[in-house]
């Protein structure tokens, strides 16, 4: 059994959210970003033969799920979808920051590819994300000037505006 600290408590289902629910709250992931989630391994686990993840099992119920982020949307919902995508990126960074940073420093890797995917900078036919990875390596220091996923997400947004080739 893993001893979790500051466990996530609830995620709101956003399926019927009002049109004004842009951003993280609308995506239903907002409450996650503020929470810690890591796993402690200690000798107590010698008695536990199978690992039973309890990472927010109430939070991530099958039907309440992670979110409705990423669903195809009508033009009138576009703003909401953009807010949802931004929330997805922020949550991804929040929980994968160490690996994203390491991959960015290397200029390659699965985690930087995942971030590229979330920014729409991964070619879905060829799978390539080289431009995005190169940009993350070149501007590593300024992109990751904080451990706050919200800040890092905004840094990437700004960088992509300045470097349009990165998302080709």
């Amino acid at each position, binding site marked *: *059994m893993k001893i979790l600290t500051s466990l996530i408590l609830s995620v709101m289902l956003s*399926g019927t959210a009002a049109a004004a629910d842009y951003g993280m709250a609308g995506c239903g992931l907002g409450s996650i970003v503020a929470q810690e989630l890591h796993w402690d391994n200690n000798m107590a686990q010698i008695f536990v033969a199978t*690992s039973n993840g*309890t990472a927010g099992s109430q939070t*991530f119920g099958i039907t309440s*799920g992670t979110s409705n982020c990423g669903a195809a949307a009508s033009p009138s919902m576009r703003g909401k979808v953009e807010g949802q995508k931004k929330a997805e990126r922020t949550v991804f960074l929040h929980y994968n920051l160490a690996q994203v940073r390491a991959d960015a*420093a290397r200029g390659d890797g699965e985690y930087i590819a995942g971030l590229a995917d979330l920014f729409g900078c991964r070619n879905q036919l060829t799978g390539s994300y080289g431009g995005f990875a190169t940009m993350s390596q070149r501007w590593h220091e300024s992109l990751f000037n904080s451990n706050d996923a919200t800040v890092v997400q905004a840094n990437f947004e700004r960088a992509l505006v300045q470097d349009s080739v990165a998302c080709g």
Partner: protein
Amino acid sequence: MAGESELARSPAWLRALYYVPHSFGRTTGMVDTPGFYLASAGREDPQQELAANLAAFRAPIPAKADDHALCRFPRRRQLIAAAMPELATGWQVVACTAYHDWRQAFPVQGASLVFSSNYLNNPSSMYGHTFLRLQRGNGASQHGSELLDYAVNFAANPDTANPLLYAVYGVSGRFFGGFSLMPYYLKVQEYANAESRDLWEYPLRLDGARLDALMATLWEVGPHGIRYWYLDENCSFVLLAVIAAADPTITAVDEFPLVVAPKDTVAALWRQGALGEPKRRLSAHSRLTLRRQALSSDEASLLVRQTGAAKLLPEVGALSPASRTRVLDALLEWIAYDEKLAGTRRPEKHRQLWEETLAARAATPSSSPLEATPGAHVTRPDYGPSAQRLTLGIDSLSGQGADVLFGFRFALHDLTSPAIGYAKDQEITMGDFQLRAHRQGKGRYAVVPEAFTLLRILSIPAFDRVTGAFAWTLTLGSERRLDTDGAPWLMHRLEGGAGVAFDLFGGRIYGVPVILAGRLSPASTQPELGLGLRSGWTMSPSPRLQCGLRADSDRTVAAAVQPWWRVAAFASFAVTTQQELRLEAGRQAAQPWGARALWFRYL
């Protein structure tokens, strides 16, 4: 109605209701929270349950349409519509918005069964854990990032943090288990990074219709709870039932009426052809090992020096770009492993080194893809024998002619067996009961206890300054020994200790001093304390062969009794996947040399 009773008896209907065989031959539904079975006897009577579902499908639509049975049970709806289409045409049209929105939010084009293998120095992790990865997509893209897929997990929701209570409650069905759906990267962080366990991803052979059925059954069972019985209704068994609910041709769920180890469910599905070739997703420890293997000896010693430093050493900057790349990459993996960087954990011990290494690596533009080895297939979880086994053997180590040994073990793997499908340096035994038919004279045998092991753990990772691994052992059990006059007595003890292991002569040698408490000498009338040593050397000349030496000794602290010792040489051969032959020669204190031949039949 003929179609109705036929459907009620069909595997598809039984699987959709999560009917599974239990001990004593009964087959009943395993979901434990109300609302899943609509009939009062829905857990025992599939026909009655079907009738209740048909009635519920005809019921008026409530104010919240999503609460209607047609919306809550899409899998049952599919089955009934396929078996009795004339009934389905009479159903009302219901707007199941919640289900449709959920399906649209989670487009799935494939599914994999994922098995998390063992991690360093925790033999109980060899049992493993299984969960599902749902590959997101609508069939168009094959290059989406896997990390962004979805994971479906079934796990207990314990209400205690006490590990002993957890073990007791887990075995006795006190916890409820529930389902969760989350981004796959959370599971990768938890298992591959925080716990450093390799993940074996086996694609499930499910076509479009079966994938649809999988999502439908998850929608039905997802909000419900199932009592968690560690031995036979654990995570892996429940997942097996979920897969069978989507694909009723899968019979693996019928193979485990008594106990089930997660590894065995993978093997059962593999045997049935339900799984494709696995992909191994490397743990933090495996990535570190690969990076270290790519280092030259100079680079490797620089890495060792660097792990003891708080800042980046100047020598690193003086390396050639290619060399610097390799060292920095290995260092990044080491920090991530040592700090268990996963989720929201940030470096604490090596914070400055982490920042400096990242900056230095970003300034070195050369790439260094991790050359993932195909993975020694002997460690694949679908390989190797099952957890439970029968023992039959002949033993002359008593020095009094040949006795017969026989016994049964619940789980899992010991170091004298070939390490196919299991770690080669970890052992965990739970519930091993051995008896001896002792020859007392011509044609006369007396059955006596030989060894009862409730728990035995032995972990012998090679000592490594970079990971700091040490060897350790823990045993709770009894065994038959012979005193100086050759008279048998039963020794009972709890023992434990830590020591060291390292590679030698192509094998692994280990020595673990232990402290014992229990009945440690034949004349003792109350519990005693003792000291001892567990040691040995074990090697594997080929994957199916394991051989080595063992030397054990212990004595009471009181030192009024002679220390006991035993030495043995053994060789074990995996004749088939589920059969093993072992030969041993050895002796114990004050006894002559003897030999033993054992045959193991895994079940």
